[in-house]
């Protein structure tokens, strides 16, 4: 893999540090008075999502990480692995549930997801920002209460638990923001 000098750094560039792949979030050139120039960079660890800061002397270089994002369609999970397919080539890929992490609880099948491949191995899955799921179980709705602002837990068909307004009924379809895990609105059958 190529190496990149600090003057090629920009946000989105993928680099290898301490054996892990990172993506540059922010790159700031700093140079005190008459002094040495540095690049102060913020990086996201693509495996853990953790954000770290690093400083390099300007002109130093870092190894690039072979990281690509691809769009795959979610098929099913078998309890251990997730199964995805590239809808163009029909190539299939399996991803351990551990890699998929928390994202797993939002999808049920057919969704297009962004999969991050590092050296051709999947390291992260980003599900769509919004999904529509049906409520499997929740306390009976309080009819007409659209204003009180109270909430109750609802278990979705995928097992995810979401806080919903009191008027929501079992069997309702809900639009959910997967980034925050919050209820957005009721949804119609897709």
């Amino acid at each position, binding site marked *: 893999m190529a190496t990149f000098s600090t003057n090629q750094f920009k946000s989105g560039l993928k680099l290898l540090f301490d054996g892990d792949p990172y993506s540059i979030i922010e790159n*700031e*050139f*700093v*140079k*005190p008075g008459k*002094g*040495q120039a540095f690049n102060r960079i913020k990086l996201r660890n693509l495996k853990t999502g953790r954000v770290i800061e690093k*400083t390099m002397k*300007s002109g130093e270089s870092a190894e690039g990480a072979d990281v690509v994002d691809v769009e795959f369609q979610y098929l099913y999970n078998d309890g251990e692995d997730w199964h995805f397919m590239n809808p163009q080539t029909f190539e299939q890929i399996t991803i351990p549930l551990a890699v998929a992490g928390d994202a797993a609880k939002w999808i049920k099948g057919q969704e297009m997801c962004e999969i991050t491949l590092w050296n051709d191995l999947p390291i992260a899955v980003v599900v769509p920002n919004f999904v529509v799921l049906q409520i499997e179980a929740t306390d009976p709705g309080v009819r007409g209460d659209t204003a009180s602002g109270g909430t109750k837990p609802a278990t979705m068909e995928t097992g995810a638990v979401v806080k919903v307004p009191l008027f929501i009924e079992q069997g309702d379809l809900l639009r959910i923001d997967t980034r925050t895990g919050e209820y957005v609105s009721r949804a119609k059958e897709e």
Partner: protein
Amino acid sequence: MSNWQPTASPAALRRRAELLARVREHFLMTNALEVTTPVLGAYASAEPTLENLVVSGGGVQGFLRTSPESALKRLLAAGSGDVYEIGPAFRGNEYGRLHLTEFTLLEWYRLGKNHHQLMDDVAALIASAGYSDGILRLTYADLFQSCFACDPHGVGTEELMVLAGHLPLSPESLAGYDRSMLFDALFAHRMSARLSELGAVFVYDFPLELRAYARLDDANPPAAQRFELIIDGIEIANGYYEITNADEQAACFAAENTLAQSRGIAPVQSDEFWLAALRTGLPPVAGVALGIERLQLVLESAATIADVTAFGQ
């Protein structure tokens, strides 16, 4: 080309023109002569932290100036009296929110003045440019003490390494740092963060490692008699009680070449015009360089230097 447009708004360009008019008025009132000196010179800057732009072709072999310092000192030695210049300066591989390869320097010299008196002059100029807040004065040592609880003058290299070890630098890289790099790293991270909380500050009297071309005082170890004006953490100006002794200046050039070589940077030929001018004799003088775009950026709280530069792409 889709990005042919200027990066500064017409309003920002008008404010720049007004700023330059006020700068010229300040020097008219305080009797400094405006001069124009060559942008293209025969000698490269010897400072290891500045990258020279090389001009080669058209029968010319030279360098774009990193500042007009050499030419202005030659004018002073030839009897010009106080001078100032507003013009472009070039520094390679400097880019980002606060840096452009080509930018505008205002540089001026006051004969018979030291760096403290020059700070007064800078404060007056900034005030007439519209900066109304007071400016704090703080020695480098006091600033360093407040950040690291130790004295920077004569501090041990191991102690500097320990302090820099707390910064997010890779240990392999840090192992190769020399003393001035360690000071720079500490400044870039911790001290500039402290300064950004203090508004406008003159930091003055620097450790020997950060001497540049400043005179030394009589203390032991000596401090370099220079200052930086930093507003909201952004360096605006850099001033010196200048070296006027040719041998001392030549020793500085030699020391810079030694440092450059230890950092794997090619040494440069010493500026013989500069040294010859000093040999004819220069009275005590203080000089300062101020980034015009940086000053405008701070005055109008612009986000980037490109916002106040016609073409800052």
